[in-house]
Structures are given as structure tokens and as C-alpha cells.
């Protein structure tokens, strides 16, 4: 291979320690009795007595366990069985995931009365069946043990239960009348629900003058809203149509990961990246950014700059695309050249291009609006006929509110679905102000940082327990239906508002029904069918431009230049898993490795190798010893970062592709109660002690919050352990992924897969023709009926990790906690491998979803001494837990490293109760026990066994879904029903990268995907393991050299590689 793909610096340099570590795959501590090799029994660490103790204990335990009486189990049927419920059969209801303005239409899988899994709603024309990691994990939030269970009142010392809603209402009425005359403010994250807004309007109309709704977004889009007001006269966000764009230029907008509506954008983006035929066309994606974001890692071309240079880049672009501005001088010649070429591309694709900008600077957004106007995006790729409602908070409103709170002008503050005490940049000022407001009521579901400071708490139900609606875009309504009775004594915040405003309508359910019945002209059928599909009849898609006014441009240009940078700058970003941090007590999300850094359970200072060399004196690229010292231990050095007069200390994670002067830090971590000891109890065991809060480093410039700033960094002597998963289970530099550029693909489509194809030829014995049958000494087994297979398109996989969470939810995959992740014991059945390649300073990134490949000639199967893993006649590599004795030979022999061993009893599935308790804090995090609570266990999928300690597990191709689909097909006597089956990862994927189905059926989607012979490959094909998962090679639409095909033929090339290796050694 001419090109290297590497996951860490050790692999890049092939250092000794790395090679050692790669050989020692299971990185475990010494087990008892394991050091007995040549020493006598008496001299060993664990002498004879211990051996006898273990022997005696296990015999006694086995006897005890076996001789126990079988428990008497009860079966309790309903008194009156609901009509639509059959025990053991899942019902599906359309609903909508809403969280701080995010809206995703979903189908809720409800089993025996409890929601257990969310799937995308394919009827939605916005998200089209896609989901995100956060929405997939949201079902676990429903069963969060920290959810408040009844209305409470803070008596100054602690919260006391208020016994009834009536008593609560009475109390509030008294308090409100005592502050009559002072304004009542509802503080909320963005509300997309039209009926709720109606309730709020009616409520506020009856309150004193100055009463208002303040929408506050933890990560703000205020700059865009204000810029659009200045340019188009609309304080709104437009709809984007990336599917209409041939060129997408993003200035730090992480639109595939966290920006605005990533699921929608991923759908649009990947539409033009699904390619077929010999002269395919693709969109061209260029990313300018300071850190390495998920979106940047998918870009065809990616250029780096400091956050403070963002404006210069935008202005230079504007000048090049025909704006009447003088371009500022750009010091970096490389960057200037790249801006030039980007502008050329934009100019060549006027009307089919778009520029997105992730900044919250209103002036910068005005400039970007001008660029979009110049390249004809307005009305083509940016639609003003339909506006987006995802974010509506204006920062100045919030700042003004906090001022008023502090001055004592506010009579009552009603906090709904927001947590400013944690997310506000000046949290102290907010909490001080909160204490000065006479009546503070929280509708939040947990006792978070803000709720615990409020005087009253009346928790609102989770969206899975609620009726509701959401209007993500004007005219597009997505309905929320309850799928479970409220678990706790909760009440809609809308109902409270109705009660407190003396409305004649008793509750929000009634209000909702009346509101929508009226909208449907009392047509019950139309109303019911809308609820059933989850969506109202969507309007015809209209594309329209808005009139652009450039009056604000000149002022914007003058102001934008005033932003000062520094030698080092911080860039604050969100992770695709944790986001703003309101789901940070979700162990599924905490344990999802970040697509770029592959770190779980923490945030960190992400820096480039050059930064590490300059600041820490750590040369990971050039100095092997230093690289190893940094890389092989989970303990990373920490640095102190000071920005906006606040200082935090964070571990350093070295990732190539970040600007050398930039430190990237994620928000959403470091949740903490006012009393630190109460954090686990109030906010949650998973959120507790996960990372550091970065919101204090956010600045405010008078109009909006700023997520970057000049910073000073200082080295410390401390270290901090990070649970990073990518370095676990190395593939040892074998050729795993294949990619090429669009140009070379069109020129020579066969070239990208030449290497594996040639290796295949070499394996065939003389006279053999069929690689599958002839290149092995093992017999061939037929797959007479169904042969399950999966195809993954690397070209559309963005690495967003929705599939990882979906897999966790579907298959009861255990949460192991940070301590165990650090020991490389994570249990995810599916991981997304991230490979760097190319330029060390600005590498290309390839994501490759990796799960059990279900090899037809599987290396794991023939090493199992008890035949616990074997092959089915449908091509599945079956793992039988009840037969497994835990030798781990299979995991050792698996070339893909996808088998997972249950080192501990993560699920509480063993016969001995509470056996994990002694391990807590030492070997196991408390967050693992969070998953073992009776409440949390309600999320488990009853069709999948909960695994106990000591067995191997791995991807089963969602065999429970396959069996179900076969049963449905048999009942319907229709073989076409097993043609395409949606397994959990395929269902969740917003990019549609994963197709699954019956390979024996030529009509199935997976068979069709595999027809693309120029791109279709199997990982490690040359081992003749015959995987049932195929991949389609990645194509980058770039002029750079991105191919990994052989440049020279034969021996010469091999020698060259060897030389290269020697040079590194």
C-alpha cells in the first residue's frame, strides 16, 4: 500500500511499544494464579492457599447455587386487558423527539406498555427517517432515576413534597398576587410547539406589563437571526437545501454533527454522495475551520485557520465572488490560495452553491449572507419560503433579563426546559439574579443546577409521556403522542399556565385537542390520521428568495475587523453525543466514543501535534519515545487554559488536523450541583465527574455569545486518565479501507480495488476458478433459503454514531463506565473506526463502521472449544451465550476485533444479588449501577438476552429482527417480506449508508448495492474469511491525491515500503 492509514501516532511510526501493545490484545491486569509459569507454587504471588481458597469457594458456591429451591414465579394477567395490546407484541406510535429546539419525527416502539426504542419516521419530509445519537438515546432519559417524582417546594433548606397539584396551585396563586405588578417572565429553550406558544401568549396577556417569553439557547444562533433581520427583514432562519448544492462551503459550521438540524442536513448532503455508474457526480464540500469537526472530517477539502481569522476568510471569499469589498490581506499564503480556489468553484456554480457559517457573530453572518447573495444561493439552496424554527433565542434578550433579575425588576420567573445556571456564560450573575426574584418556578424534569435554586418545582412529563406538537419549519407540523402513562406525578407546564391564568380549559390535553380539531375543521378522521402518521399534510415544497438589503454590510465589515485574536485561541464546540449537556446523565451518550477523538466520558483540550510540541514539549510525530510516553497510557498531561478571565484545567488530547494555535474544547460536561456532594443524587451518576464545565469560557460581545477567544495556556505536572477507544483492538496496519478521488475513479474505476483483487487471485490454487469455494481446504456449505448480508457505503457514512446508540438500545448492550473503558473493556457491538491518512498536519479522515462481519469461513468458529459460536444456514455467525465458557479464543482469533467479553457483571444478570457493589469505585463506575436500577431496566429489549459475566458477545445482525421478519413473512406467506430488513443500525442511519437484506434475492437492496463492482470490497478479503458485510469504497471529490491504489507495480513498490518502515524504526 502506498498510503498509510493510521489510528494513532504509535501506529503511524510503528514504535516498539505500539507493536508490543498490539500483540498483547487483552490489556488486563494479572489474574490470580496467572504468574505461576516457572516459579514454585509457594513463591508465586498467589500461593497454594489462595488456590485452595478459590477452589473451596467455587465448589461451595456452585453447590449452594445449585441446591437452592427454584423460585415460585407468578404470572399476573390484566384485570381488564386494553384492546390494542397483546403481551409480547410491539406497538408502534408516531411521535416527535423534541429537545431544546431539536425536532426529529420518530416512531416509538412500545412493548407491553413501555417505550423501548425510537426509530426515524420515514414519512417526514424533513428528517426522512434519519435519527441522531441524541434522539436514539432519548428513550433512556424517560427512565432516568434522577427525574423528579412530584411537585416540590423549597423551604429555604431543602425541597419538600407538595402533596397535591391543587395545593401547589393555591400556593402559586398566593405568591403571584404578592408580587402583582411586576412582570412574569417565562424563560425557556426554543419552543417549536405552536399550541404551547398559544398557551403562553394567552397566559402572558393576563400578566402585568413587561411579562414576556424569553427564549434562551445554550449554544446560540442569535447572530444568524439578527443578521437575517438586518439583511432580509426576517428575524428567522431559512431552510437550507444542500441537495440542490453542487458546492457546499462551510465556515466552521458543523452541519453534519451539531449545527442547527444535522439529521436533515445529513439526508440532503448524502443524497448527492450516493454514486453509481461510471461517470458519477458528487457535491464538492469545502470546510474552513479551526478544529477538526465531524463535518470537517467528511469534507473533500479542508482548510485551517484561527477562529479570529474567520472574518478575514469570509471577507476574502466575498471579495472573490464579486462583492464590492476590499479583501483583507491573509498572511498564510496557503490559506489565501485555497480561498482563491474555493471562490473559483463558487463562481463556477452560481445558483448551485451554498456557504454555511457556524459563527454567532452577527457581523460575520451578514457578510456570509452577502456571499450567498452573490453566488445566487438565495432562493435556490437557501429557501426563504419556509423558515426554520429550531433556534429562536436572542442573546441580548437573555442578558437583559439577567440584568433585570439582579435589579429586582422581575416578579416571577418560570423556567422551562433550560438550565442557565449551568449553560449561561456568567452563571454566577444568573444564580445571584435568580435569588433576587421573589417567585421562581421550575418545570424542569430533574433537580439540575437551575431547578435546585428555584423555590418551586413542578416537573413536566417527558416527551414520551406527553401530547404535543412541534413545528420545525413553518407549515410542517410533527405531532407528539404519549406512549406510556406518566411514570411520576408530573404535570404539563402548559397545564400549569392554563390553571394559573384562570383559563376555562382545564388542561393542556383538552387545549391541544381543541386547538388541532379546529385546525382540521373538526374533521376527526383527518385529525386521527395526522396523529397516526405523526405529521400533518405537508405543504408543497416552495422555493423562494427573500429581498436582500446590503445596508448593514458596510458597518458589519468595519466591526468584524475589530475582533482580536491571540497567539493561542480556544474554539468551543459541541460533541455529537453530548451536545449542550442537557442529556449528560445519559450513560449511553457518555459511552459513545466521540467520532473524532474516540474518547468517552470526558471532555479534554483537543490540540494539534505542533501545539503539543510547542507547549508541552511532546513531539509525538518525530520522537518515538515521547510519542509512546504520551500514547500508551491512558493518563494524559493536563494544561491550564485561561480565556475571558476564567481558568480551567483539562487533559490534552493530540489530534492531527487542528490549527497549531487552537485548543478545542467541548461543552456539555462538568455538571455540578451547588453542593458538590449532591451531584450524583440530583443531576445523576453518569453526569457526575464527567469532564469540566467549559461554558464559563464563553464570552459576550454586547450582541451575542462568542464561542472562541484568545487564551493563554500553561503546562502543568498533572495527568488525567482518558477512556479512549480507538487504540483498542488494532488492525495492525492491514489494508482495511479503500478510497480514491472522483477524478481518478472516473479515469480508472478498477484501480481503487486493484490491490485486494490481485491478492485474491494469488490465493487461488492452480486451476481454481471460484475464490469462495476453491481457495480454502474447508468444505463449502450452502445457504439454501436466506443469506443475510449488509452493505455499507463509506461514501455516505459521516461517522455521526447514531447507529452505535441505536445498536446499544436494540441489543441491551451494557454500559461499562469509564474505569472499564480505560481498561479496553467497552462492550459496543458496533464501533466506528476513524482512520487518518495523508498530510500529517491536515489529514484526511475515513470513517468505517465495524461490527461482526459474519464471516462464512469464520476464524472464530473453529477455535471455540465448546462450539458456542458457529454458523447458521442463513450466513449468521451465531453466538450462543449459554454455551460460552469464556476462553476468549474467538476474540483472539478475530481479525476484525469485534468480539466483546463480559469482564464483570455489568447488567446484574448473575444469580448473586448485589455482587457488583464491592467493585464500585475500584473496578466499576457508579454509572454502571444506574443501568441496573429497576426503573432503568424498563428500557431493556425483552427479545434479547441480558448477558452475564464471563461470556463473549458481538453483533448478531439484530437476529431478533430477522426472526421477527421471517415470522411475519411466514404468516403472510410472502417471501418478499424478507427481502429488505431494517436492522437497528440501518434504521438509525441518517445518511442511508447501511443496507441490509437477503443476498440470495437479486431484487434486494443489498444485492443491488453489491453490483457496484468497482467499489464493492470486503475487509481483509485476502484472508478468505468470506465476510457477509461488504463496503463500498470512499470517493473524495478533490483534486488532491487521496487514492490508496498502487502507483507502481510489483516488487519495487514493496521494497519501497520496507525502506520506509526502516526509516521510521
Amino acid at each position, binding site marked *: 500500500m502506498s498510503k498509510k492509514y493510521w489510528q494513532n501516532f504509535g501506529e503511524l511510526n510503528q514504535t516498539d511499544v505500539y507493536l508490543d501493545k498490539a500483540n498483547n490484545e487483552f490489556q488486563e491486569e494479572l489474574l490470580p494464579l496467572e504468574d505461576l509459569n516457572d516459579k514454585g507454587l509457594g513463591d508465586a504471588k498467589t500461593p497454594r492457599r489462595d488456590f485452595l481458597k478459590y477452589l473451596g469457594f467455587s465448589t461451595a458456591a456452585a453447590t449452594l447455587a445449585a441446591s437452592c429451591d427454584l423460585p415460585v414465579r407468578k404470572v399476573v394477567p390484566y384485570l381488564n386487558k386494553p384492546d390494542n395490546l397483546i403481551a409480547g407484541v410491539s406497538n408502534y406510535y408516531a411521535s416527535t423527539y423534541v429537545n431544546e429546539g431539536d425536532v426529529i419525527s420518530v416512531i416509538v416502539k412500545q412493548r407491553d406498555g413501555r417505550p423501548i426504542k425510537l426509530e426515524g419516521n420515514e414519512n417526514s419530509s424533513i428528517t426522512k427517517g434519519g435519527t441522531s445519537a441524541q434522539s436514539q438515546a432519548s428513550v433512556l432519559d424517560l427512565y432516568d432515576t434522577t427525574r423528579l417524582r412530584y411537585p416540590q417546594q423549597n423551604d429555604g433548606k431543602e425541597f419538600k413534597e407538595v402533596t397535591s397539584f391543587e395545593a401547589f396551585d393555591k400556593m402559586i396563586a398566593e405568591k403571584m398576587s404578592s408580587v402583582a405588578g411586576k412582570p412574569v417572565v417565562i424563560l425557556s429553550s426554543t419552543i417549536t410547539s405552536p399550541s404551547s406558544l398559544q398557551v403562553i401568549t394567552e397566559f402572558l396577556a393576563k400578566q402585568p406589563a413587561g411579562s414576556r417569553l424569553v427564549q434562551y439557547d445554550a449554544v446560540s444562533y442569535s447572530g444568524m437571526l439578527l443578521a437575517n433581520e438586518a439583511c432580509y427583514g426576517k428575524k428567522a432562519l431559512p431552510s437550507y437545501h444542500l441537495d440542490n448544492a453542487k458546492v457546499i462551503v462551510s465556515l466552521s459550521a458543523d452541519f453534519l454533527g451539531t449545527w442547527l438540524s444535522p439529521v436533515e442536513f445529513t439526508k440532503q448532503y448524502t443524497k448527492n454522495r450516493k454514486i453509481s455508474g461510471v461517470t458519477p457526480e458528487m457535491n464538492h464540500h469545502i470546510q474552513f475551520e479551526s478544529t477538526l469537526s465531524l463535518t470537517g472530517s467528511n469534507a473533500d477539502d479542508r482548510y485551517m485557520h484561527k477562529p479570529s481569522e474567520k472574518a478575514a476568510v469570509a471577507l476574502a471569499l466575498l471579495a472573490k465572488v464579486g462583492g464590492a469589498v476590499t479583501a483583507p490581506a491573509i498572511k498564510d499564503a496557503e490559506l489565501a490560495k485555497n480561498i482563491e480556489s474555493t471562490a473559483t468553484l463558487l463562481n463556477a456554480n452560481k445558483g448551485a452553491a451554498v456557504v454555511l457559517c457556524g459563527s454567532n457573530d452577527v457581523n460575520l453572518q451578514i457578510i456570509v449572507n452577502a456571499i450567498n447573495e452573490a453566488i445566487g444561493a438565495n432562493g435556490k439552496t437557501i429557501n426563504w419560503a419556509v423558515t426554520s424554527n429550531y433556534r429562536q433565542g436572542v442573546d441580548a434578550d437573555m442578558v437583559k433579563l439577567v440584568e433585570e433579575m439582579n435589579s429586582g425588576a422581575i416578579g416571577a420567573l418560570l423556567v422551562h426546559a433550560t438550565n442557565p445556571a449551568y449553560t449561561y456564560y456568567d452563571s454566577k450573575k444568573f444564580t445571584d439574579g435568580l435569588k433576587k426574584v421573589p417567585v421562581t418556578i421550575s418545570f424542569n424534569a430533574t433537580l439540575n443546577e437551575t431547578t435546585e435554586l428555584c423555590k418551586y418545582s413542578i416537573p413536566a412529563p417527558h416527551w414520551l409521556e406527553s401530547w404535543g406538537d412541534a413545528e420545525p419549519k413553518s407549515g410542517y407540523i410533527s405531532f407528539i403522542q404519549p406512549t406510556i402513562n406518566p411514570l411520576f406525578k408530573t404535570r404539563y407546564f402548559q397545564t400549569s399556565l392554563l390553571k394559573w391564568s384562570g383559563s376555562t380549559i382545564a388542561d393542556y390535553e383538552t387545549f391541544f385537542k381543541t386547538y388541532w380539531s379546529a385546525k382540521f375543521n373538526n374533521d376527526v378522521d383527518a385529525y386521527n390520521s395526522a396523529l397516526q402518521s405523526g405529521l400533518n399534510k405537508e405543504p408543497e415544497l416552495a422555493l423562494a428568495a427573500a429581498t436582500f438589503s446590503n445596508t448593514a454590510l458596510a458597518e458589519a465589515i468595519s466591526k468584524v475587523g475589530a475582533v482580536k485574536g491571540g497567539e493561542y485561541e480556544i474554539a468551543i464546540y459541541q460533541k455529537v453525543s453530548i451536545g449542550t449537556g442537557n442529556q449528560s446523565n445519559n450513560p449511553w451518550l457518555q459511552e459513545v466514543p466521540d467520532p473524532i477523538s474516540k474518547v468517552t466520558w470526558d471532555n479534554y483540550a483537543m490540540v494539534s501535534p505542533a501545539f503539543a510540541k510547542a507547549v508541552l514539549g511532546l513531539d509525538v510525530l518525530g520522537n518515538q519515545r515521547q510519542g509512546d510516553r504520551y500514547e500508551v497510557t491512558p493518563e494524559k498531561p493536563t494544561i491550564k487554559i485561561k480565556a475571558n478571565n476564567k481558568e480551567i484545567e483539562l487533559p490534552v488530547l493530540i489530534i492531527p488536523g487542528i490549527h497549531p494555535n487552537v485548543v478545542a474544547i467541548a461543552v456539555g460536561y462538568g455538571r455540578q450541583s451547588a453542593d458538590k456532594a449532591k451531584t450524583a443524587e440530583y443531576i445523576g451518576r453518569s453526569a457526575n465527574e464527567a469532564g469540566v464545565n467549559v461554558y464559563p469560557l464563553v464570552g459576550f460581545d454586547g450582541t451575542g455569545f462568542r464561542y472562541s477567544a484568545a487564551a493563554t495556556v500553561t503546562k502543568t505536572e498533572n495527568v488525567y486518565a482518558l477512556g479512549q477507544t480507538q487504540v483498542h483492538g488494532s488492525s495492525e496496519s492491514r489494508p482495511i479501507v479503500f478510497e480514491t478521488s472522483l477524478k481518478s475513479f472516473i479515469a480508472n474505476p478498477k484501480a481503487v480495488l486493484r490491490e485486494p483483487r490481485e491478492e485474491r487471485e494469488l490465493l487461488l490454487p492452480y486451476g481454481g476458478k471460484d475464490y469462495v469455494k476453491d481457495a480454502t481446504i474447508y468444505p463449502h456449505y450452502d445457504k439454501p433459503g436466506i443469506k443475510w448480508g449488509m452493505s455499507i457505503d463509506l461514501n455516505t457514512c459521516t461517522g455521526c454514531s447514531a447507529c452505535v446508540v441505536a445498536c446499544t438500545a436494540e441489543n441491551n448492550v451494557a454500559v461499562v463506565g469509564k474505569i472499564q473503558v480505560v481498561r479496553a473493556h467497552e462492550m459496543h457491538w458496533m464501533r466506528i473506526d476513524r482512520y487518518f491518512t495523508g498530510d500529517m498536519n491536515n489529514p484526511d479522515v475515513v470513517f468505517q463502521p465495524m461490527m461482526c462481519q459474519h464471516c462464512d469461513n469464520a476464524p472464530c468458529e473453529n477455535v471455540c472449544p465448546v462450539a458456542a459460536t458457529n454458523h447458521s444456514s442463513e450466513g449468521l455467525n451465531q453466538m450462543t451465550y449459554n454455551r460460552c465458557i469464556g476462553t476468549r479464543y474467538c476474540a483472539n482469533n478475530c481479525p476484525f476485533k469485534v468480539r466483546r467479553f463480559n469482564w464483570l457483571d455489568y447488567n446484574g444478570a448473575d444469580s448473586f444479588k448485589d455482587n457488583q457493589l464491592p467493585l464500585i469505585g475500584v473496578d466499576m463506575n457508579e454509572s454502571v449501577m444506574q443501568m441496573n436500577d429497576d426503573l432503568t431496566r424498563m428500557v431493556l429489549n425483552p427479545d434479547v438476552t441480558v448477558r452475564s459475566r464471563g461470556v463473549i458477545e458481538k453483533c448478531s445482525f439484530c437476529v431478533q429482527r430477522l426472526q421477527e421478519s421471517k415470522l411475519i413473512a411466514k404468516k403472510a406467506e410472502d*417471501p418478499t417480506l424478507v427481502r429488505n430488513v431494517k436492522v437497528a443500525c440501518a434504521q438509525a442511519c441518517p445518511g442511508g449508508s447501511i443496507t441490509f437484506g437477503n443476498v440470495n434475492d437479486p431484487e434486494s437492496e443489498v444485492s443491488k448495492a453489491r453490483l457496484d463492482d468497482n467499489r464493492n470490497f470486503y475487509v481483509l478479503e485476502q484472508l478468505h474469511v468470506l465476510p457477509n458485510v461488504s463496503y463500498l469504497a470512499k470517493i473524495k471529490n478533490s483534486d488532491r491525491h487521496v487514492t490508496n491504489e498502487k502507483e507502481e507495480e510489483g516488487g519495487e513498490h514493496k521494497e519501497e515500503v520496507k525502506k520506509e518502515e526502516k526509516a521510521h524504526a
Partner: protein
Amino acid sequence: MSISYLTFAAIEGYFSTKDIDLGLMSHYRKFITNIFATLLFIALISFSNSSLAADGEALFKANCANCHKPLEDYIGPAMKGARKRAPNPEWSVKWVNNVNTLLETDPYAKSLLAKYGSKMTQFNLPEADIKAILDYADAYTPPVAPVAVGGGAVKEDNSLLFGILTLVLAVIAFILLQVNSSLRKLADEKDGILRADPVPVYRNKTYLMLGIICLFFFGGYKTINAAMGLGRMKNYQPEQPIYYSHKVHAGTNQINCLYCHSGAQDSKYSNVPSVNVCMNCHKAIKEYKGEDIIKEDGSLVNGTAEIQKLYQYAGWNASKKTYDQPGQPIQWVRIHNLPDHVYFNHSQHVKVGKQNCQTCHGPIQEMPEVYQFSDLSMGWCINCHRESKVNFYNKETGEGNKFYSIYEKFHNDIQNGKLDSITVEKIGGTECQKCHY
């Protein structure tokens, strides 16, 4: 010692006298005749019961059994001889599908209504089905109880026989060895060869070793069997909160299993019916008037009192005919327990595999209180999967489940005569991940 001499004597007699020989032989013959007769009996019974009205029986149970019994009057008249009693044989067929019209015009229909007091539900069944039901009812004979007992007896006899034979042979072998050594001793004495005194049996190392080996194998066999049986609960028959007799409901009253356990056709679970399903019938059926229900311990069950217990649970006031108390669900004791790592789907077996409930649950209709009939072990499952045939699709005739048309290869094999039928095992029914995931 004295005992062994006695046995020795008896065996001596066996070798010398013909009477005993004959006696044993005749005993043996008796066994064979017994077995043969029983087998013949079973064959006859099953033959007479089955083929004639297989369809009719199913149809009867599904459609009629809630109100009709074959032999006696129930909510409606006895079905046997219905055609003979009617004005003409065709009348009965017409009646089933035209209840409403006939009740207005036909005098015989009116007389039936007057006699039984309630109107029959009008059906829409094919004529052939109605005839099949009536044929079944006419040919109906009450089931003969002792079949099962006979079957059991055969098995017992066999093992007893083999046991006795083994014992006899072992004793013979032992005696022969003893005789041999005695004779040798005599011969040696005669020849003047001096030998040590024979070692007594209980100190003879060969015998001791043999004994130990036997004990080892016997003990090992028993231990392994017992270990495999751990957690298996065949014949588990716990006491339930209400003495609910399946014999009365499914046996005597012929209520279709799926009427109460409706989940079996749709779900992996065969649900225990909710209380409202019980009350569908028991609003009307307030007291038990059938034949005596005898508990396992021999005591008599008061059926009416058990119905009262149901009313307690349901919160039903029988005299006022209203639910005036808050009800509470019944906590039945679960009999059939599968381990957590086993996936079993009822609808797969009932709907697709078309298995009778009795295949696994045994003669439920004869159980006063349910017990676990099968051991629900993996071997037992696998065995059935090896033997059962799937309803394979036949491309020529279009018969069978069309889903199986994807098994092209098996289809060809059947056509070529390589296979004559497809078992569940053939389509992967014995693979691990069909039940364990």
C-alpha cells in the same frame, strides 16, 4: 451366606426341573401377548377417533363448542342426531347460515327457540363445513379414558422385565463363577495340588473392582441425569389461587384453547386470560353443576365457591349484576418457565407450524389442575424439530406456505426424488440462534 445358598438352591432347581422352566416361559409369553394386545388396542382407538372427522372436530370446537355439546343439551341442543330430529336433513345445513330468516318463518325453528330460550348466532359457513361438523357430531363417541394408563403400563412392564432378566443373568454368572472355582478346587484337591483357601467374595479384589466400576457408572449416570434435571420442572403442579379446571373448560365444555389464550396465535407469549375474559362467560355461569371435580388429594372441589372467588377478583356483584367493587388481577403461579436465554414464540408454532397445544402441553383437556407435561428440555425441543415437517411449498400445485418458495434447492431435491419432505431441521430449525439470542 445363608441367602446366597438359598439362591443357589433355587437356581439349582431351575436347571433341574422343567416345571419352573415352563412357568417362566409362559410368564414371558404372557408379557408379549399383553404388549401386543395393548398396542393393537391403541391403534384401533386412534384409528376410529381420527380420520373420519378431523376437520369437523376442529370446526366444531372453533364455532359451536361454546354453546353446543355433541351428546347432551347445553345452551343449545345436542349436536348428535340434529339432522335426524330436523324436518329434513337439509334443514340443519340451511339453519346455520339463515337463523334470522328461519326464526321468523319456520315452525321447527320457532319451537327450538321456545325450548332453549336463546337465539343462535347466525354463521356464514360453507356448506361442506357445516356437513363436516354434523358428520363429526353424529360419529362422536365419548373418549375412552384408559388409553393413557394402558400406554404407561406397557412401559413399566418392559423395564421390569429387563430388570429381572439382568438380575437373573447376573446371579447366574456369579453362581457359575462360584461353581467353577469350587469344581477347580475339588479337582485340585483330587490331583493333590495344594492351594490357598479361597478368598471370600467380599475380599476378592476382582469382585470389589467390578463392583466399584459398576457403582461408578451407575452413580455417574444418575448424577449427570440429576444435574441435567436441575431447574427442570416436569410434572410441576402448583396450587393456584383459584382451582381452575381445564378438564371442565377445555374438556367437558370444549372451549377452544385460543378463546382464552388468544395471544398464542399472535405473540411469543400465550397469555393467561385477563379477568374480563373469564367474566365474558361467568357473568352468566354462576354455579358449577357438572360432575364432581376431585382434587389430587382426593377431596372434592366446590366449583361454585371457586366461581365466587373469581367474582371477588373481578369485583362483580352477582346479585346486582354490576361491578361494584374494585377488582384486582389474579396472581396465578406460573407453571411453564423457560430460562432467560431461550426465545420461544407461540405464534410461530401455533400459526405457522400449526401445532396442537397438546403436543407440548399434553392432555390439557383432561387435567383438573394443570401440570407441566413435557420437561421443556433442549433435547426435547430439538427432537421435535428433527421430526416435524414444514408445510413446504409445492411449486406445481401451489400448495403449502409460499414463504418456503425461496428454498429453491430443496424444491429441486423434492422434484428429483432426493428428498420426500422438508423437516424443520432442514431449514435451520436446530441452529443455536433460532432460540438463543
